[in-house]
């Protein structure tokens, strides 16, 4: 039964589809990965250094894909540039383009370029043919890698990271605000929304970098730096605790206040959202990984067990955060603003906003990351040796 009770007739069809679920999910991964990277840079957490460059490239790969679900969702994607040309100042959404461009160009691309500049210059000297051409373009004509120049790079990178942290907060807090400021929808309307989005973003970003680091080490047949993964997992655990507490605070507040929307929302959580919210998001995607990570903090477990726990907890976390985005975006449209009825979300498979598109868009950042990793190897053991040094050259992979 698609409709139960009474929906306003224009509400039966959902306005925002699975692609709008992907949008906060992907930007969350960007913000989280960047914040993890900045730990090393700004707070000098040496232990997480092996993930630093990987986290930056992950953030870039996901950021490049972030506008695609939005673009595909628009009724008139060819008019989207109007948001840059004639932004409506009272609209939260109008700021998306500016926040996005600021983060992409002023923070992420600049920081990656500064961090890799020495490597790019060295690679442009070492490689041949088309590869050489690509690296020469990437140097942007700046080939000075004297000690003094590198010191300036480092200083500039540090300042950009300093600016980058609030920018990452802005990027994802803003996404939360987009939903939290819709007063017509009690499921969304909450000042907690930007904060909850931010912490869940950090959780998902840390989890994805943890998994990518472990996977890439396994793939490259390199030993995993346990000090690094233990530290990253610890951050994941603590951030997750904060995130979970915030979400529970929101939930308890709603239950205790029990305003006019409560019966409607409560009904939904026990019926249409039971699987995605209670089972997948809370039990499987939050309590299970928190429990598993707690085990690694409380017990003295062997290296192999810890690795397995991290892999399972990280994967469950990513599923849980996806479910959280789903429950916010789709869940927020399943009930009527009259609080008298419920509708159903029907997802197509091969459609502009269908499941296939969503799967492709989810996998696309990984493909981009693969290219980025080939182009700019993030592994500490793969940094090109300075000319004239005796260190053996590594092949990039």
């Amino acid at each position, binding site marked *: 039964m698609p409709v139960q009770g*009474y*929906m*306003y*007739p*224009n*509400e039966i*069809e959902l*306005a*925002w589809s699975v692609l709008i679920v992907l949008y906060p999910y992907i930007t969350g991964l960007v913000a989280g990965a960047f914040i993890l990277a900045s730990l090393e840079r700004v707070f000098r957490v040496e232990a997480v250094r092996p993930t630093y460059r990987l986290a930056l490239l992950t953030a870039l790969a996901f950021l490049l894909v972030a506008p695609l679900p*939005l673009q595909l*969702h*628009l*009724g*008139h*994607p060819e*008019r*989207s540039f*109007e*948001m840059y040309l*004639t*932004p*409506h100042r*009272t*609209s*939260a*959404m*109008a700021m*998306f383009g500016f926040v996005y461009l600021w983060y992409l160009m002023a923070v992420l691309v600049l920081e990656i370029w500064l961090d890799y500049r020495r490597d790019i210059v060295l690679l442009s000297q070492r490689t041949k043919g088309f590869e050489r051409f690509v690296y020469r373009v990437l140097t942007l004509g700046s080939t000075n890698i004297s000690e003094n120049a590198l010191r300036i790079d480092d200083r500039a990178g540090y300042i950009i990271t300093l600016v980058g942290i609030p920018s990452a907060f802005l990027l994802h807090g803003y996404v939360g605000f*987009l939903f939290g400021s*819709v*007063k*017509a*929808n009690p499921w969304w309307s909450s000042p907690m929304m930007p904060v909850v989005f931010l912490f869940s973003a950090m959780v998902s970003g840390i989890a994805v970098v943890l998994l990518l680091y472990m996977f890439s080490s396994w793939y490259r047949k390199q030993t995993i730096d346990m000090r690094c993964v233990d530290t990253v997992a610890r951050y994941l655990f603590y951030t997750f605790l904060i995130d979970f507490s915030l979400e529970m605070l929101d939930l308890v507040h709603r239950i205790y206040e029990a305003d006019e929307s409560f019966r409607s929302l409560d009904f939904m959580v026990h019926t249409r959202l039971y699987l995605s919210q209670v089972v997948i998001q809370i039990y499987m995607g939050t309590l299970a990984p928190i429990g598993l990570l707690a085990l690694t903090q409380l017990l003295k477990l062997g290296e192999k067990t810890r690795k397995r726990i991290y892999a399972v907890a990280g994967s469950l976390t990513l599923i849980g955060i996806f479910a959280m985005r789903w429950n916010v975006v789709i869940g927020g*449209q399943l009930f*009527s*603003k*009259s*609080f*008298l009825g419920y509708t159903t979300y029907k997802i197509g498979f091969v459609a502009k906003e269908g499941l296939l598109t969503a799967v492709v868009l989810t996998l696309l950042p990984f493909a981009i990351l693969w290219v980025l990793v080939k182009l700019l190897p993030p592994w500490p053991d793969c940094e090109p040796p300075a000319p004239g040094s005796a260190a053996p050259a590594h092949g990039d992979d």
Partner: protein
Amino acid sequence: MKITRRQLLILLPAAAVAWDSVLAGTPETSPNYKLTEHWWGMLVDISKCIGCGNCVRACATENNVPEGYFRTWVERYHVSDTDLANPVVDSPNGGKNGFPPILGSGGRNFFVPKMCNHCADSPCTQVCPVGATFMTPDGVVLVDKEYCIGCRYCIQACPYGCRFLNPKTQTAEKCTLCYHRITKGLTTACCEACPTGARQLADLKNPNDPIHEFLRTHTVQVLKPYMATGAKLFYNDLDGSVR
């Protein structure tokens, strides 16, 4: 056909009266219309609505509204005397074809016509990222379909469920208060089609508009006043159970 002088004397005054009504129905030419002299809203008298669906059909025809979507619709409320907080509501096909026999016995039954509230502080206008949704100086919220990017943020922001994405134009759509008619001195299609006068177009800036007298002498409310949208769709006899 031969017309005698006598017949002509009878016909002439009749023709004069008829001509007068023809003139009354002739739209005011647009150049004479001054935006700043009007502030449009609508009055809905719930006690007069009989749920015939004329308004929904007239609107769909006048504005070429796609099937399955509604710029206006009519809801039927059934409020039982034992459970005031949980009304039973239905609106089969937006009430376009009228309503089937009553849902339950006892309690109260009444119809509530719904449409865009043309809010003075409309959330849909606020959230539109490109300013395609805007308020005219005479108080009508409109969508520029040549400019709308189809992001549907406005649909989410409307507390009354009045907006939809037109599947053909892929742009947001809603009631225009028949702007093409009211700026020419006509009333809206729904008001014109209403057989009981349950809907009345109201010009709040016109001191001679009967709305002022009505507002002075009746208890009039708007939907969801706590949303503070400055709604200009005024309901007479609005039951507290209506959402």
